[in-house]
Structures are given as structure tokens and as C-alpha cells.
């Protein structure tokens, strides 16, 4: 029997031992896998940093930011109709190069160009609340504003009857959501030949201006049967005017959004109904979508959030309580 030199055995044993060790250690090693929790920078540029609507939006965004490990940069111009200011904020955001931008455009057309520019820096943009004229937007999170306008019109016509005069208090001319709500409202009203829209005013989401414009409208059109106001701020101003000038209950009013003042007026039957959006969910889902967009995931074209028509009868339903009043401990 011819034998190999004894080195061969040593080599053989060494070989098997190394094999065994690597085998075993690879078994154990493959078990652990750290989750990659990295911070995502998201700039959220909204229309203004005031009012319950935007506060609730911010609340939702902050909750999502905590959950998705996002460093949220909440920005807004002074006023809701400060288009230049918002363009400037966008430009600054592009320079900072965050992982994603969420934009609630004050003007559909004017913000389009600067939004297009984000694509040069590869910053995904999520549009929230109101759309912007840019194809670079990854998705839109928000209300179906046209439908919301129609809902308001439907209820108002129910309240005023088929022969009536109606005034519209809108907020910013050029803002996509304002236009869509108005369009929806007018399109629905058009079905009733007896219903006339006698006036459309734009208050620029200024409560006082809305108050003055409403007072003026009430004076100019003494036979006014109903008023619809299409944003939170305009609703507050218009509602106050209707209440204080003694038109409460006589002039039917449909408000938009759910500032606490409006809810009080609703309970006091000065305002008959309100179309309520879901700003908390808007903010939350916009941030969630921005995180997905930053990761390069494909998103749906639209992520719709609900609107609800709230009146005195249903305002205390448990699910509506949850929608109308943000839970603050």
C-alpha cells in the first residue's frame, strides 16, 4: 500500500476543519441583519403657517415624520396669496436639496416652472392639497375639490330651494383647489335655472377681508338666500359677518373646513353645513408618499382623501367627532 507523506493528512484535516468552521460560522452569521433606518429630509411647503387647517395638516405630517424617521422642514409664506414668497421658498428648498419636497401650491400656474426645476436636482415632488401645473409631480395627495364644490352646491340648493340668489366667497384666484371647488359648485348650480350666482369674491384667505366682502355682499344683495365660502379663512370671516349682522339662519350658509369657530356657528345654527376635508390625513399621507418617492418607489397618480358634509345632525357622531376635532391630550 503506497502512502502519501504525512503532510497530506495534516493538510486534509486542516482543509476539513477550515471547511467546517466557515460552514458553521456562515450559518450563524446569516441570521442577523440590521434594519437600515436612515433619516429622510422632507421639505413641506404649504400656503401659510396659520389657521387650524394648516395646523392640523402639520400635525398629521409630524406624526408621519416620527413614524417614518423623517426630518420635516415645515415652510410657508406669510399669506396664502403670496405666490412670489412660495416660489422663493421652493427655490431655497431646491438649493438645500432635500430628499423630497411636498408642495401645496398657492397658484396652479405660477408654481409650475419652479416645480419643473426640481427634476434637475432629482428631488421628487409630492403635490398636496392643491395641484400644480407640472408633470414632474410624483403624486397628488388631497381632496377631490371639484366633488367637494358639488357637495356644497347640492346642500345649499336643498336649503335655499330652486329659486334663489347665491353668493360665493372664494379665497385665492388661481389656486387650483379654489378654482376646482368653484367649478364644481357652479357646474352643479347650473342644473337649476332658478338658482342664480349673483356674486363671486376672493378674499385671499384673509378673515377680515372675507368679513368685509361678505358684509358688502349682504348689503348689495338684500335678497341673498345663500352664501358658500370655499376655504377655512373665508368661512370664518363670512360666518362672522352673517352672524354679527343678524343674517344668521336667514341667509343659509355652507362653509368649508372645520375651524372651531365654524363648529360653534354650526351648533348655533348660524351655519347650516360644512364641507370638511381631512387635513390630518393630507399631511400624514403626503409625508408617507414623499418617503416612498424619495426611495424611488412608484406611486399612484392620486392619493385621494375624503370630504364629508357635516351638519348639526351628524356632527356628534363618533366618527365625525374624530374627524372634526383633532385629538389633543
Amino acid at each position, binding site marked *: 500500500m503506497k*502512502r*502519501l507523506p*504525512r503532510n*497530506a*493528512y*495534516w*493538510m*486534509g*484535516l*486542516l*482543509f476539513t*476543519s477550515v471547511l*467546517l*468552521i466557515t460552514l*458553521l*460560522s456562515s*450559518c*450563524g*452569521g446569516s*441570521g*442577523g441583519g440590521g434594519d437600515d433606518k436612515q433619516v429622510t429630509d422632507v421639505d413641506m411647503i404649504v400656503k401659510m403657517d396659520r389657521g387650524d387647517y394648516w395646523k392640523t395638516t402639520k*400635525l*398629521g405630517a409630524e*406624526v408621519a415624520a416620527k413614524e417614518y424617521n423623517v426630518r420635516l422642514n415645515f415652510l410657508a409664506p406669510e399669506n396664502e396669496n403670496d405666490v412670489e414668497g412660495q416660489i422663493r421658498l421652493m427655490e431655497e428648498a431646491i438649493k438645500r436639496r432635500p430628499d423630497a419636497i411636498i408642495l401645496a401650491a398657492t397658484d396652479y400656474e405660477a408654481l409650475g416652472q419652479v416645480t419643473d426645476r426640481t427634476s434637475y436636482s432629482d428631488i421628487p415632488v409630492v403635490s398636496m392639497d392643491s395641484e400644480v401645473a407640472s408633470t414632474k409631480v410624483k403624486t397628488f395627495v388631497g381632496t377631490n375639490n371639484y366633488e367637494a364644490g358639488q357637495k356644497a352646491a347640492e346642500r345649499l340648493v336643498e336649503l335655499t330651494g330652486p329659486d334663489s340668489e347665491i353668493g360665493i366667497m372664494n379665497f385665492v384666484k388661481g389656486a387650483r383647489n379654489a378654482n376646482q371647488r368653484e367649478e364644481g359648485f357652479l357646474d352643479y348650480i347650473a342644473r337649476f335655472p332658478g338658482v342664480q350666482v349673483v356674486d363671486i369674491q376672493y378674499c385671499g384667505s384673509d378673515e377680515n377681508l372675507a368679513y368685509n366682502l361678505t358684509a358688502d355682499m349682504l348689503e348689495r344683495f338684500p335678497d341673498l338666500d345663500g352664501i358658500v365660502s370655499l376655504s377655512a379663512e373665508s368661512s370664518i370671516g363670512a360666518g362672522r359677518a352673517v352672524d354679527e349682522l343678524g343674517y344668521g339662519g336667514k341667509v343659509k350658509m355652507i362653509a368649508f373646513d372645520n375651524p*372651531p369657530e365654524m*363648529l*360653534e356657528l354650526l*351648533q*348655533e*345654527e348660524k351655519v347650516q353645513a360644512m364641507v370638511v376635508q*381631512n387635513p*390630518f*390625513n393630507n399631511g*400624514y*399621507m403626503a409625508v408617507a408618499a414623499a418617503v416612498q418617492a424619495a426611495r424611488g418607489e412608484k406611486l399612484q397618480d392620486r392619493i385621494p382623501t375624503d370630504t364629508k358634509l357635516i351638519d*348639526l345632525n351628524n356632527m*356628534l357622531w*363618533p366618527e365625525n*367627532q*374624530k*374627524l*372634526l*376635532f*383633532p*385629538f*389633543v*391630550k
Partner: protein
Amino acid sequence: MRLWRSVKRLLQGFHVRNIQVLISLSSIAVTVLAVVLVSTLLYNRFSQAAEENAYLSLEQIIEQVHSNLELYVSGMQDIFDLVEQKIAVVPDLPTNDQLGEQLETVLSTREDLVSMALFTEDGKLVRNMPSIPMRQNTRLQEQLWFESAMENSGKLQFTPPHIQNLFKWQYRWVVSMSKTVTYRDQGKLKQGVLVIDINFRTIDELSGRISLGKKGYVYIIDSVGNIVYHPQQQLIYAGLKYENLEPVLNYAYGRYFDESDGEQRIITIQTVKPAEWKIVGVAYADEFLTTKREVGDFLSWFLPLVIAIILVISIYVSARISQPIRKLERSVQMVERGDFGTNVYVSGAYEVEQLSKRFNLMLRRIRELMDQIIQEQEAKRKSELDVLQSQINPHFLYNTLNSVTRLAELGRNEEVVTTITSLSRFFRISLSKGNHIISVQDELEHVRHYLIIQTIRFKNKFRYDISADDAALKCSTLKLILQPLVENAIHHGIEKSAEEGFIRVEARLEGDNLVFRIRDNGIGMTPETVEKLISGAIRSENGSGVGVRNVQERITLYYGADFGLHFDSEPEEGTTVTITIPAVRPESLEQGGMEP
């Protein structure tokens, strides 16, 4: 290709029955098995204990929240009872200022109390604290706190969180305690509903400050599954987060695993008796049962390490055992090849050392035995030789003496003298003091005297000639090897020939060999005769007694089988016998012994 061949070679060399491989493999197998077995047992035992500990601490945490909350709720109950008592004793509730102050104090000391109010059974306000005007359209009779208080008369009710819309201030989320109570209005006993609203400050504090890992949390639901408190209450209200409440409602207290959202969560449940709230602790298994994973991680590197160490040790030990044995084996192999001079000394295990010692003893014994055998053989041979040499036929002596007698009668004194002298010389060399080895010169002298005697006997029927190299003369040779052949030449060659015979004896050094040639011109021999001669079948009756066979045997015995006689014979031409023996110089002659 080369790699494959070398691997194959390695595997061929890797004999399973090789001691080293056997020991290594079996010890590795046994220890790996043992280590794996022990560590799995330990792992299971340890992780089980760790798991139980985790559950225990979970339960303790939840129990802590539970007892705090129970304390809080019963504290609230006490306040409610206190307010109820105070209301009951006041004779005219709606206008009593003293009561107002007392209740104001209670409210202001407790930050978590929002408001208290008493309503009639038709939902009309009797008195509230703080005194803030009511809103319109509160629809309080439709509200849960009012309804359930009316339904469960005399029993304290807790509501899930709801919006307080009664008074003209901020809309607030509250939990309401309500109960039907009796009070006096202007002395008349009346029934009403007392409601005290609590905010979430204390509940949040009690439930939020405990830690169930980074992700874990505690939430509270009421008996029908309404969320009372949740750290992410707004998310749940907004429909962005869900709790799997269905299984929770089946438990009053206890623990179960929930995997509804993909992650393993340990749900621990406790019930707060007075309010029938359920405290639900949610802990994430990957955070809370980390010990199991840690132990697993530890074992995953510890196990290979242990196995590696065992591997190295077992290789070393098996080498320590098997290498001496292999060394021993190689030594035995050398002995097997005939090298008995090998001395084995192997250090190592005691047994192997003993074995090598014994082996050495055995070797020595073998050597001794072999020496003994050689000596015995030697002695035997010597005696045989002696016997052979003593076999000198007396016939030669009789014949010679007869010839001498005849010569003496004829008066041929000179020839008598020559014959006797030669005979005496012949015998003297024959005996040569008992030595077996004599010089070539003596051997030739011996033959000469024999030939002298024979020429006289055979009346000059033949002539002879003896010649030798000077160098050859000094060499030594076995004695009495030429004479038998010369005798043979005379008897079988010359005697039967009609012609005058001639015998030539030569001694020559040829290389290392000493060569004798005995040539005659007699009748020659057939190969058969040669054969018979060598085998000893033919013996001359009156010869000197030493036959051709004897010569051959002695040469072979003494010098080895390589040496001996060679016959060249041709009928009618004559015969040449060649004797070849090794040339031994005089120096070694003096030693005289017979070395093997």
C-alpha cells in the same frame, strides 16, 4: 484538472482506517455531537428562562400601569361620590353658594377634572361648575353618558372619549363619569344626572411613561372596544392606524401573540375593574425576546470556535498517538527487508515506548539466535570437512607400498627412495598439521609427489608438467583439491589410452580468482560420464579416497556456490578440468580462520 488530481490523491491518502484519521474523526464526531447537543439543550433552557423572565417583566409593567390606573379611577370614583354626597345634603342646590365654592376648590386642585354638571332627567341644566353658559343644540339626551346613566340608574358610568360640546368654551376631548343622583331643589327631592368630565392628562401620564422597548406601548379600551387611550390616538381616529381589537376583547387578563401586521407582538391584557377598561400592553417580540437572539448569536460564533479547538486538539492528540506507531511500523518494515541492525527507539505514549522496547529486545534476541545458527552451521561444516578429509583411501597406500616392495625386489633402490620420499612428502602435506588451508605451492607440491609416485607405478606411462604464476604460488587454497582430479585424469584418461599420456597442472591468477587447470590427453569423457563424476556415481576403487564430488562439495561449502569445477572434455582428445576459487593472499592466510 490538476486540482482535481491533487484532491483525489489527498482522498486516496486519507485512509479511513488510519489511526490518526480514526481518532480525529471519531473524537470530532463525538465532541461536535456533544457540544451541539449540550448547546441546544442549554439554548432551549436558557431562552425559555429568558422568555419567561421577559413575560414576567412584561406582566409586572402592565400590572404597574393597571394598579396605578385602578388607583386613579377609584380616586375619581371617590371624588364623584364626594360630589354626590355634597349635592345630596344641600337643601337648595341651584343657588347654594357654599357648595359652589367647595366644588370650585375640588375642581381647581385637580388639573385633570374639566367640569362637573347636574342635569335634570329632561336634560335641563341644574347647576354646572365652572359656571359657563351652555351652548345651543347640545342634544345631550342623545349623548352616551346621559343615556347610559339613565339606563343604569344608580351605577357610575364611564364613557369612551368624546367631544364635550355642552359649554361655551373650547371643544375638548373628555371621558365622562355619569350617574343618576338625587338632589334637592327648594327642599324638593329630585332625580338628576351628574356628569364629571376628565381630561387625558393623568391617563396619558400613567400609560405613556412606561417603557415596553422602543416600539412597544400601552393602550386602553373600554369593554366594547372603544379606544379610551392610545399613544397614537389621532392616527387611529384618522383611520391611518388600526389595532386588532377582536382577540383583545376575549380576554379579561392574560397574554397572547399577535402577528396580524406581520410582526410578532406580545399582547398583555389587564382589566381595570371600576371602569371596566382593559389595559393592553403591546411589546414587540424582536425587542423583548432579544435574549434568545443574543444567545443564538453567541452560540453561532462560540460553537465553531469550540469545534475548531477540538479539531486542533484531536489532530494533535491523534498525531501524538499515531506518529510513534507509524515510526515503529517503518522500523519494522526495515527489519522486514533484512536489516536486523536497526535499532528502534520511539518516544511517545507509554504503550508505544514499551512496544518499541520489546521490539528492540526481540530484535536483539533474533540477532543472537541468528549468530547462534551461523556458529552451529559453521561447526557442522567444519566437522563434515574433517570427515571428508579423513576419507583417504588406504588402497592408495597399499598400492604404493606394493610398488615399493616390487621395486626393492628388483633392486631399483633409487626409485624406492624416490617413491618413499614422495610418499612421505605426500602424506605430510595431506595432513599438514590439520590445517584445511595450505599454500598453493604446498598443494602443487602435493600433486607433484602424487604424480611422482604414479609415474613410478605406471612405469612412465605418462609424463607431467606443473606450472604456476609466482603470485599464484603465494596464495592459499583448500587442500587436496588437485590430487583427486589428477587421479581422475590418470584413471579415466591416461590409463585407458594406448598413447603416452601427458598431464599438465597449472595455477594461474585470473583477476580476483585463482584458477587451476588439469589437462590430460587421455580418452576424454562423454558429458554423461562428467555428470556421473560430479554426482559421485563413479568412484575409483583404488583411488586416494577423495572423489571429484567431494572436491566440488568442499569448494562450494568453503567458498560458496559461485566457485567450483568446470569440465571441458572431448572423447579421444582429452579433458581439461578448471577449478576456480577466490584468490586469497598470504596476509589473510595467516589468520587461518574461517570467517562466514
